[in-house]
């Protein structure tokens, strides 16, 4: 299972500390998805060797303008393993689910965001994972949390009906915000997301990283064209 994190300078802890904590909490890897204006510097191989945790390079495109987002997604697609788009408005949610270069639509229900059957079907068609962000359920109280849970429940009902792919994350920005997979599954059960659904969503990050690494590796000549037995060896 993987956790998607925001590291220093966007968060309070370095990638190495987050990776170390992830290992202690029973995760197999972390996806570093800092935004474009606060990129983290780190050495993925060194961290992997030291803590035995996979470190996946990623980015979260955060803007209100679909055109700008489209450019950013195109720029990052070749370099980053996982490209997420920060949702939360009608236009950005729609942009993300209609773009097959996007891997993950982050927190689609936050703020003014909403998801309906049209977006869920588009996400299914384009292979865009809808994210269940538990950070505000973990960190907020009262009315804000009630609305957050309502949003997640609604999203679950839609995703469950159409079989839209999904990811789950607690989105830690420091090593103190990590919560173990079993705790997140237990929390999910309390708020109407089945435990297996939560665990599956945490594991989905890993499957996504593995697929994208394969597609971006040398064995593909270009997207969709795999090196076969007729290619000459170099």
């Amino acid at each position, binding site marked *: 299972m993987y956790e998607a994190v925001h590291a220093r300078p966007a968060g309070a*802890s370095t990638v*190495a500390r*987050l990776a*170390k*904590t992830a290992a202690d909490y029973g995760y197999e890897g972390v996806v570093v998805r800092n935004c474009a204006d606060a990129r983290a510097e780190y050495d993925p191989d060194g961290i992997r060797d030291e803590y035995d945790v996979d470190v996946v390079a990623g980015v979260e495109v955060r803007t209100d303008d679909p055109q700008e987002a489209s450019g950013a997604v195109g720029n990052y697609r070749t370099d980053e393993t996982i490209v997420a788009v920060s949702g939360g408005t009608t236009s950005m949610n729609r942009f993300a689910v209609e773009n097959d270069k996007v891997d993950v639509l982050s927190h689609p229900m936050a703020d003014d965001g909403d998801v309906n059957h049209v977006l869920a079907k588009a996400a299914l068609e384009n292979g865009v994972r809808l994210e269940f962000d538990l950070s505000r359920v973990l960190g907020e109280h009262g009315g804000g949390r009630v609305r957050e849970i309502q949003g997640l429940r609604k999203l679950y009902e839609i995703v469950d009906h159409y079989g839209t792919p999904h990811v789950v994350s607690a989105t830690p920005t420091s090593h*103190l915000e*990590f919560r173990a997979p*079993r*705790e997140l599954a*237990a929390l999910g059960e309390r708020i109407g997301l089945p435990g297996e659904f939560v665990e599956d969503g945490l594991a989905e990050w890993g499957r996504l990283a593995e697929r994208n690494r394969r597609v971006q590796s040398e064995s593909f000549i270009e997207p969709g064209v795999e090196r076969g037995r007729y290619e000459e060896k170099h």
Partner: protein
Amino acid sequence: MKHLPKHLRPRWRYLAVALESWPDAEVGRRAFQRELWYAGQNLLGDPGSAAADLTVVRFAFADGTGHALVKVRRGETESARAALACIDEIDDSPVGIRVQGISGTIRAAEENYLGRGRQESEERNVVFGNEERVAVVRNGDGSADVRLPDESFAGATDLDYDLA
């Protein structure tokens, strides 16, 4: 009052919980118990928290790390896990919290999960991000919390700094 016959006594499970915070955090047993009950009440409601119990029976915290044993009624351990996960700060200090294991007796929980000795930490001068800083380094596991100019901390490990 005379105590209950054995078959009527409630069955308990004890959750061994690891706590972590920044080095300057002061987390007391009463504050932890209060936050735990708040979290239980907010997430599980009054009937749910009555069913779970959530009493802190052992507690220790110093230098940014600690542990606790939480007493829970048998069968309610998953709700207790969920409530524990929702504790994000205690007395305004953010805390990391993790269930290390569950046992049927306090003694077994202590022996199996809390036996590891306390980690000593010390202040060291380090070079972090090309600046000289003071870091609270935890001996033995490589974690370090680097003090920043605005009195906050950055979570780091020995991969991130050089000793000055």
